[in-house]
């Protein structure tokens, strides 16, 4: 549905994108996940025919983004990162305007936007500039959907939106997916990765990995431990002082650490040594606990855990410095 081959783009001195290749299958929710400045918006603009890549080719719906830009513009829905509605027009006026821009009427495709639009319909005479973040986002989505696009490009739709509205928004995306719309969405929130079918992690213009969130987590090669105690701030310093600890980061109510010279690769490949490994880990955890308690930590809890996307991102981004 969307394909990108070796796309590169440079702005003056800054290499915004280097050698990006990936494919989005029909009907998929594909997440482009990375921090601000990673190149997400540049990539979106290339795919929506707004800017030209320096190198590489890309196609949307089988249409070339350079040659067939007019045809692509008729078929895709695009919601740019910034709030891109007319602030001084009402909710209703915005929707009607964008409907005519796309050669259609609100009535014609109402079925598609009904679920979303109904939530803001009570405020339809209110100016778009006076809506809350969550409602602006729903209106912008309605406007992007009004011409029944086959592919939807959403550039950071949830940035700056509170967690509740974000959950609602992802619920809406799932419903759109059921109606057969392919969705490419970008976000800086790593926790939203699990809501996508497949994701690409992006940093500094390079893709770190492309796969389903589950497989990316599985490919995390190191043993990951979560550690907590009564004094989390001191715990961070103390953990980093331990020579065996390779990396240590705060993760909500615990710290996540990886250890040097240990990969969990054994686990899969050498089933014989599995028991030995498990024993090993118990030993390590015990040693660590003793070590920390000697430094006056109370209620030390150490567990081996499965990595999340954020752990993977941090691990992968080490190689992309």
């Amino acid at each position: 549905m969307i394909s990108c081959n070796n796309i590169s783009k440079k702005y003056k001195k800054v290499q915004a994108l280097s050698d990006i290749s990936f494919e989005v299958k029909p009907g998929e929710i594909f997440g482009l996940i990375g921090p601000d400045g990673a190149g997400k918006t540049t990539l979106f603009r290339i795919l929506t025919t707004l800017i030209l890549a320096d190198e590489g080719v890309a196609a949307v719906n089988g249409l070339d983004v350079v040659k067939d830009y007019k045809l692509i513009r008729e078929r895709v829905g695009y919601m740019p990162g910034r709030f891109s509605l007319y602030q001084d027009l009402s909710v209703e006026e915005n929707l009607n305007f964008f409907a005519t821009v796309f050669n259609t009427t609100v009535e014609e495709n109402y079925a598609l936007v009904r679920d979303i639009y109904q939530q803001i319909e009570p405020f339809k005479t209110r100016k778009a500039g006076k809506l809350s973040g969550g409602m602006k986002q729903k209106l912008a989505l309605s406007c992007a959907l009004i011409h029944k696009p086959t592919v939807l490009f959403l550039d950071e739709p949830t940035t700056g939106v509170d967690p509740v509205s974000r959950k609602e928004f992802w619920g809406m995306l799932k419903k759109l997916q059921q109606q057969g719309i392919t969705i490419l969405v970008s976000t800086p929130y790593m926790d939203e990765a699990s809501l996508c079918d497949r994701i690409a992690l992006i940093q500094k213009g390079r893709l770190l990995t492309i796969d389903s969130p589950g497989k990316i987590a599985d490919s995390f090669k190191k043993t990951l431990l979560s550690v907590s105690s009564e004094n989390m701030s001191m715990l961070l310093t103390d953990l980093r002082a331990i020579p065996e600890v390779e990396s240590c980061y705060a993760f909500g109510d615990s710290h996540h650490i990886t250890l040097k010279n240990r990969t969990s690769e054994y686990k899969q490949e050498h089933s014989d040594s599995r028991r030995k490994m498990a024993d090993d880990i118990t030993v390590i955890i015990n040693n660590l606990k003793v070590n920390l308690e000697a430094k006056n930590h109370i209620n030390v809890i150490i567990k081996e855990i499965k990595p999340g996307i954020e752990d993977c991102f941090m691990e992968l981004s080490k190689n992309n410095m």
Partner: protein
Amino acid sequence: MEKVIVVENLTKAFGRFKAVDQISFEVEKGEIFGFLGANGAGKTTAMRMLCGLSIPTSGKAIVAGYDIRTQPEMIKKNIGYMSQKFALYEDLTVAENIRFYAGIYHVPEKEIAPRTQKLLERLGLEHEKDSLVKALPLGWKQKLAFSVAVFHHPGIVFLDEPTGGVDPVTRRQFWEMIYEATDSGITVFVTTHYMDEAEYCDRVSIMVDGKIAALDTPANLKKEFDANNMDEVFYRLARNASRKAD
């Protein structure tokens, strides 16, 4: 413990609409106080009042020992402020930005040079001293913005979504800077949309529809709402909000 923020029945009404509706809380010296809430719950309005930028309709608040109603100028001298939207001048260099903020907060002239040196060393920005801020990666900008916000050693620093869009590693380094600041006695008042960051706070308040719906340590909140993490706590509280628009 010394109380650096005392809020009693603070209310801000716009016509008949109560953006902030009789909120009361206290923040202790050296605490990291998380101020959460859905969009439109009244966080920004409350924060503006505490910074002395807007006068409350009723109720009172003492910030850093000064009344927000009668001594807003004193408050502004004694707090630091940083927001995601505006923090530094992109078209000034790192050193110029520091110099500018030092100037508006009356940092003693002879203090500026040594403090600037220390700040740059701490951030590893010695070689970027004369680069324009817009040339720095976002993560560095945010860390620099925070350092600048506490450059005049304020009693309290207000951070409005300081880590939005920042990469995971930098986000954590940012929080470590916050910890360091509190170790030196600075109180941190912070808003965020990242729920894992709520866990880093000593206490968290969650605003719903202009009122404070919950206020406690993250551990207690999780216990009270029988939740695994702060995300669930937040969701349970904010889901039923009646106020959907600003």
